[in-house]
């Protein structure tokens, strides 16, 4: 039975195109790059600049069965002739990269990467986020050049510009609203708390990724997002800075990935002033972890006592409760309680529920945290680069 994208011929009832990421990359994209055409009419080519997401779903129909996601090949073009960034703007909006790229493996061999993008309506920086999500899969250079069928021209298409040019295979879908996914009485109990999912995943190393993400400077911002060129540097730090009191926690996040390289400038900048202000209040901030007074003093007096800091982190990562604390803080700190109702963050059920899950005995900690916040903000001086930035009205 042959497949046609035009819907003339039929996919057997009940069957859907649900390729694994490995199939997408290892089978389809490799064939595309090596100019094989067999089976490729399942996945059409789409000019991402010309089609809006809602148009793509028309073009990428497979058969006549209803679909939740749509697949297409796209050829990435540079935004500027001299740059490496990709132009992903359409007439109605733009695709903006989010998060960090995920590595795709096949049989434990890395073959490519997945980038997640969100469609914003309008023009940066005033775009309005939509529910349309795109996963963009690209092959690693190694795995493409290893494939013997690739002609010289295609390897030049891949280029050396950080894979910002060339063919990619994409999947778009509409982000599910968690409140609408209750398709059975059973799943109500499952889906009502995406927070538990979040916390579970945090035990699997996601937390480290979050830290890394929060700690890195502007890596992802320069990574081909559609929104213009400015102001990226402070965006990750600003929500946390703004609370003024968060500088200690913020500093922790920033420092984490830099443990091996304590000399990096960003680490040094925020590290010094924070320790001066905050050292004595350490035990308040980390419930369940009793910092010995001697080591607290050591930490305060020796800013580069990484071993002590390491222990601190280890104790935090020891259990789910502790992990949830950190999420809790990173969630709570940026936004004063009175504001939370107005933020889109708290409109998600996840926010409230994992706050509840983590909350329990931290209500009092919370208040201490806020009083500490005042203390910290009154103490913070212009010598603290982070606080300096945060005082600028947004």
């Amino acid at each position, binding site marked *: *039975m*042959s*497949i046609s994208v035009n819907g003339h011929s039929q*996919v*057997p*009832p*009940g*069957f859907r*195109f*649900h390729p*694994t990421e490995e*199939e997408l990359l290892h*089978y*389809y994209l490799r064939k595309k790059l090596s100019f094989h055409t067999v*089976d490729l009419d*399942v996945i059409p080519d789409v000019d991402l600049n010309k089609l809006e997401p809602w148009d793509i779903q028309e073009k990428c129909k497979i058969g006549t*069965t209803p679909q939740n*996601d749509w697949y297409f090949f796209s050829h990435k073009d540079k935004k500027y002739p001299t740059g490496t960034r990709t132009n992903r703007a359409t007439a109605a909006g733009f695709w903006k990269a*989010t*998060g*960090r790229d995920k590595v795709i493996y096949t049989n434990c061999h890395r073959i490519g990467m997945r980038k*997640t993008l*969100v469609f914003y309506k309008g023009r940066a920086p005033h775009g309005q*986020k939509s529910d349309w*999500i795109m996963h963009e899969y690209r092959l690693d250079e190694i795995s493409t050049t290893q494939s013997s069928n690739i002609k010289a021209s295609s390897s030049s298409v891949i280029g050396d510009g950080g894979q910002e040019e060339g063919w990619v295979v994409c*999947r778009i879908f509409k982000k599910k609203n968690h409140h609408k996914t209750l398709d*059975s*009485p*059973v*799943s109500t109990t*499952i889906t009502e708390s*995406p927070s*538990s*999912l*979040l916390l*579970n*995943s945090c035990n699997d190393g*996601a937390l480290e990724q*979050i830290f890394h*993400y*929060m700690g890195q400077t502007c890596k992802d911002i320069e990574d081909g997002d559609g929104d213009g060129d400015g102001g990226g540097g402070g965006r*990750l730090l*600003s*929500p946390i800075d*703004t*609370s*003024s009191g968060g500088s200690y926690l913020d500093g922790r996040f920033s420092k984490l990935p830099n443990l091996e390289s304590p000399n990096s400038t960003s680490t040094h900048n925020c590290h010094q002033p924070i320790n001066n202000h905050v050292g004595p209040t350490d035990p308040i901030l980390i419930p369940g972890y009793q910092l010995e007074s001697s080591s607290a003093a050591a930490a305060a007096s020796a800013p580069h006592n990484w071993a002590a800091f390491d222990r601190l982190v280890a104790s935090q990562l020891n259990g789910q409760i502790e992990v949830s604390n950190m999420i809790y803080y990173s969630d709570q700190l940026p*936004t*004063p309680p009175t*504001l939370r109702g*107005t*933020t889109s*963050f708290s409109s*998600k059920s*996840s926010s409230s529920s994992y706050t509840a899950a983590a909350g329990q005995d931290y209500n009092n900690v919370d208040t201490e945290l*806020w009083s500490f916040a005042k203390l910290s*903000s009154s103490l913070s001086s212009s010598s603290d680069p982070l606080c300096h930035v945060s*005082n600028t*009205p*947004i």
Partner: protein
Amino acid sequence: MAAADHSHNFNLPPGFRFHPTDEELVVHFLHRKAALLPCHPDVIPDLDLYPYDPWELEGKALGEGNRWYFYSRKIDARVTDNGYWNPLGRDDPVLSTATSQVVGMKKYFLFHAAAADPIKTNWIMHEYRLPDAASSSSSSSSSSSSTRSSKRRGRPKRQDYSKWVLCRVYERDEEKEEEEDGAELSCLDEVFLSLEDLDEISLPTRIQ
């Protein structure tokens, strides 16, 4: 896996899998089976009333990923060697997307492992059956529930096994539930999106 085999049977390119909607299961498979019409594709086996434990379905039912599909008969108590399927909550109607008419009913079961104090498991079954309206079309269906049950009780202990059902069985995996269709965002993505939300809202510069 079995999934790949099935798609190869139809010369489907890689990536095609059996992911039927409720409506497809009912209209394309259950209705045709009940009407003794040939099912196309004839991929779902008929396990009749064999009381397989859910973990025994591999190789017997149509397996796709961690889901298994098979035909069976309507039965009041589905008891296996090692447990039983306990009905959950209410039944859901399966609607036709074209006409919004009820084309079937969907019932949910949870597998309990037999023990002195039966143990709930993560095994879920969706049982699809033809609409009840067909059976009760003779009289007003709304008022007939009590009379029907008394009628059934009045009958000798003979069950009507002629009614086909279509079952989907899977083991709930709480961690992967959200990503089951592969189209959902990972938890990490959600976190990142939330972070960007924070970026977009205007925060006060300091606490009052």
